[in-house]
């Protein structure tokens, strides 16, 4: 299966949406994109605290991580109930 391009497109889209939604400054956006490219999105959310970006930007990324984690737990719980 040719997943490479699908994966790349999906990853680019996620990073683009995340930077736009979190209103990151240009410098932070570049750091986030580089980190995602290097580690992947899931790893990124586990290690974003290491990035040299503003604290308020980290707070917003952290908020997004909480929402993602809650959604994933909700799905797991619902799947378990089925």
């Amino acid at each position, binding site marked *: *299966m*040719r*997943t490479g391009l*699908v*994966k790349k*497109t*999906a*990853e680019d*889209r*996620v990073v683009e*949406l*995340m930077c*736009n*939604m979190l209103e990151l400054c240009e410098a932070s956006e570049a750091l986030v994109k580089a980190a995602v490219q290097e580690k*992947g*999105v*899931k790893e990124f959310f586990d290690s974003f605290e290491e990035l040299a970006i503003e604290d308020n930007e980290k*707070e*917003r990324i*952290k*908020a*997004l991580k*909480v*929402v*993602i984690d*809650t*959604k994933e*737990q*909700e799905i797991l*719980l*619902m799947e378990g109930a089925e």
Partner: protein
Amino acid sequence: METKELYTDSFFKSLNKLTGIPMSKIKDYARDNNPFNILDHPMVVEPSDRQLEKIGKLKEFLASYNVLKMTQDSEKIRFTSPKDAGAYFSSLLNNMKDKERVLIAFLDNSNSIIEVKTISEGSTNMSVVYPRDILKMALANDCSNIMMAHNHPGGSTRPSQEDIDLTQRIVNIFKPLDINVIDHIIVGGYSFSSMAENGTLPSKSMDLANYKPMNLTDVHDHQGTYEMQKDVLSLDEDLEI
């Protein structure tokens, strides 16, 4: 664990930080409802324009993140329901605000994606589809099933008569080859509809295959009620918009 226990103060605070919706409103709504419903039905918290925009962005992000997870968790993306397919195509098409794009997923016999191709990209209300191109790609992929998807930049998820006609034409071409058209997903903004789910997906070949290019027009120009195609297209018939 109860689902409600998942929605902690930290979660509400995060939702507030990302959308600007006051905590009190989110908590009030969450008392009797799933707080994620706010993303699908934002008016329940009476958002300002800015908050509405932020809710839309968060919803779009979560849909895209979900697709990315699907691609990372498994080497194969498999559609098991219209909901899966809708979430997948919605994340690929919901950013297309100024033009129409038609995608086809070529699937194996377990409905896992072999390949996804853009087969047409047009203006805000029209794109041209060349059925013979789809046929060539399907044969190259040796697929068992195909799934169609396109967006309506106008935002409606209702299939237009042209959408139904196009789907019928594709069914006509593929049925004799034992390749099933299993669904046609229509994405409008952050929502989607499935022709298989709403009963408008043609399942039988009704005519000789017709390989002429076909114009696909956005539904906002055609607001009539949809019904199954009754008339059969002839080989020489052009569909005028």
